[in-house]
């Protein structure tokens, strides 16, 4: 029977499957961070258990750490205690840690690929819902809760039911000014935030093949925003070229053997999926969200929808509430909405290619008066690379704030946050109420759209930038 890549990876990793019970699934890589792990280590200690495979476990601090210079201590006492707890747990259990002052520190979903730990065909978990990012390499990667973190630490296994499969085929070619972020925001706007529940997305089609690894990561990253715990892209030459020579990638004869195996990780001709959707890349515009979940997005030339046009009463209620929270009026265009803050960063769009795109827009320009622009690299390595290329100088000269690596205002745990009522355009992945600070209001968009907006202070169409028209 022809199989999808999802089934192939699944089958490889089933340790045991009892009638009526979930499968015991073997995990190849477990990523750990400070926020969702402390209670799991406490659990291990209470049971008198060890970490079964420290060599398949890696930790970093990213969520609660400040993005101010690293020679300053962590001012927030609770955050400091949490980071210290992570250090103590990793030391006690022998887990390698790229701590908050390490040159390899970064957002967990940025450093895994960077270090070559994220590899095709692997099962990858983390106590973090954006673990699907690693699916860009053809890995089955998904977020888990803290009880599950404890299970994986103890056994390197997890109880899982076989997921359903969902083919997302993106055909055609993206227009200038339209990017990977816009593909995923368009998908979620179409299927809704619960559209992929119970499924794993496989992203395929010519527009996906044309994307770089970093762009594929942007797309897989937001699978959870469409309700799917995981999303992946079958590996190809782009994948292998990205991985080759990375610190933890196989080398020499091992590399050749690995690539030969990875080449078999494609969905067979005739493989069937539980659901399918086709998106035409040629018709996509830059996308912006207007509401309080990532499914509330529209093409940038569009107008804010009217609850009165919603046939489903629940959807109408949700829209009314969202517009109230966002203080937006149905029928207004999204272009021209003023913002207070521009946030460029996160595990969705905090990689070097994202920073290059934004810097390219801001080069030699000045950001709009009264607007705060925060640029937060996804990892210490991204930061170093950006500085080698002089991007930090471009951002600073334009009036932007250049920070240390971390999650920062994507989740606003560390003091980088909006004031109540403020608007941000953000390259992150969630526009939930209060996500970027209590009472803050978020427009999600691509780095290009965010940078264009930084120049004008109001939501701007990146296609009007010089060099974008055709």
């Amino acid at each position, binding site marked *: 029977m022809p199989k999808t890549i999802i089934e192939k990876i699944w089958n*490889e*990793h089933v*340790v045991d499957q009892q009638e*009526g019970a*979930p499968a*015991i699934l*073997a995990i*190849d890589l477990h990523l750990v961070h400070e*926020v*969702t792990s*402390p*209670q799991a280590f406490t659990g291990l200690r209470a049971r008198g258990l060890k970490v079964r495979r*420290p*060599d*398949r476990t890696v930790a970093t601090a990213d*969520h609660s750490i400040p993005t101010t210079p690293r020679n300053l201590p962590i001012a927030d006492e*609770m955050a400091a*205690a*949490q980071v210290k707890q992570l250090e103590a747990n990793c030391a006690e259990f022998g887990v390698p840690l790229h701590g908050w002052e390490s040159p390899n520190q970064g957002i967990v979903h940025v450093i895994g690929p960077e270090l070559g*730990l994220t*590899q095709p065909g692997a099962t990858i978990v983390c*106590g*973090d*819902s954006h673990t699907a990012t690693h699916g860009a390499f053809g890995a089955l990667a998904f977020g*888990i*809760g*803290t*009880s*599950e973190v404890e*299970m994986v630490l*103890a*056994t390197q*296994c997890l*109880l899982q039911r076989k997921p359903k499969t969902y083919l997302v085929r993106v055909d055609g070619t993206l227009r200038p000014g339209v990017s990977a972020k816009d593909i995923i925001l368009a998908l979620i706007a179409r299927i809704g*935030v*619960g559209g992929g*529940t*119970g499924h794993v997305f496989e992203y395929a089609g010519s527009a996906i093949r044309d994307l770089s690894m970093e762009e594929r990561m942007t797309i897989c990253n937001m699978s959870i925003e469409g*309700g799917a*715990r995981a999303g992946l892209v079958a590996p190809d030459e782009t994948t292998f070229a990205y991985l080759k*020579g*990375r*610190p*933890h990638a*196989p*080398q020499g004869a*091992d590399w050749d053997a690995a690539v030969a195996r990875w080449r078999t990780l494609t969905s067979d001709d005739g493989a069937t999926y539980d659901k399918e959707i086709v998106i035409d890349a040629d018709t996509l515009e830059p996308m912006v969200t207007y509401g309080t*979940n990532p*499914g509330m997005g529209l093409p940038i030339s569009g107008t804010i929808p009217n609850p009165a046009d919603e046939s489903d009463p*629940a959807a109408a*209620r*949700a829209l009314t*509430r969202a517009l109230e929270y966002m203080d937006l009026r149905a029928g207004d265009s999204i272009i021209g909405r003023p913002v207070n803050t521009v946030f460029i960063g996160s595990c969705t769009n905090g990689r070097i290619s994202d920073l290059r795109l934004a810097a390219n827009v801001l080069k030699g320009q000045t950001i709009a008066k009264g607007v705060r622009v925060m640029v937060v690299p996804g990892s210490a390595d991204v930061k170093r690379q950006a500085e080698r290329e002089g991007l930090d100088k471009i951002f600073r000269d334009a009036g932007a704030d250049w920070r240390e690596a971390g999650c920062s205002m994507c*989740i*606003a*745990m560390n003091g980088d946050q909006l004031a109540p009522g403020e608007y941000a355009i953000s390259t992150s992945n969630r526009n*939930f*109420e*209060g996500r970027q600070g209590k*009472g803050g209001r978020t427009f999600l968009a691509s780095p290009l759209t965010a940078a264009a907006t930084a120049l004008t202070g109001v939501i701007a169409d990146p296609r009007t930038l010089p060099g974008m028209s055709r």
Partner: protein
Amino acid sequence: MAAPRVGTFTTGLVPLPAENVDTDQIVPARYLKVIDKAGLADALFHDWRFEADGSKKSPPFVIDEPRYAGHGILVAGDNFGGGSSREHAPWALGAFGIKAILATSFADIFKSNALKNGILPIILPAELHGTLMQIAKDDLAATVTIELATATLTTPDGTAHQFPIDAFSQKMLLDGLDELDYIRTQGEKILAHETSHPGTINTLQPNAPR
């Protein structure tokens, strides 16, 4: 930590007719800096319940209304628990006294996390859900009985309805069994799989020259 055990319980309803309630609403991120599970009851729905100065909103958010005090079943809108994987969400719900959530659908990770903490995410057909939402709003004395052994929910008029729950989770919760203990009973198979699937990922040893 002992595994949770769930049997039969009878309790009142709390209406929360909002769709897509995400885990950032259930527990805002700034409450995730804890290193234990205790004390999250006040973090539950924090920004919907409290003013900036920490006082309760007036009128209070539904779970704080005195007339719903002690009610253990939340009747929520569609796709409850989306977004972040934070298990702090069911910890906080449990700490507040919520035993079950009724909705037309749940996000995957939340559902899994809730079951591990003895909170039942019960999926109901739209019509029954609508009826119970109305009862929750109108009839404060109404109670619902949930019997896990038979996977039935008995509405205030005495009608019993079957709800879906996977047989494995049902048994684990009924018997108070622990999933980690269950996995550990399969140690030999885990070892055999590890031996036959050595893999190429090693977090302790970088292999490429730097």
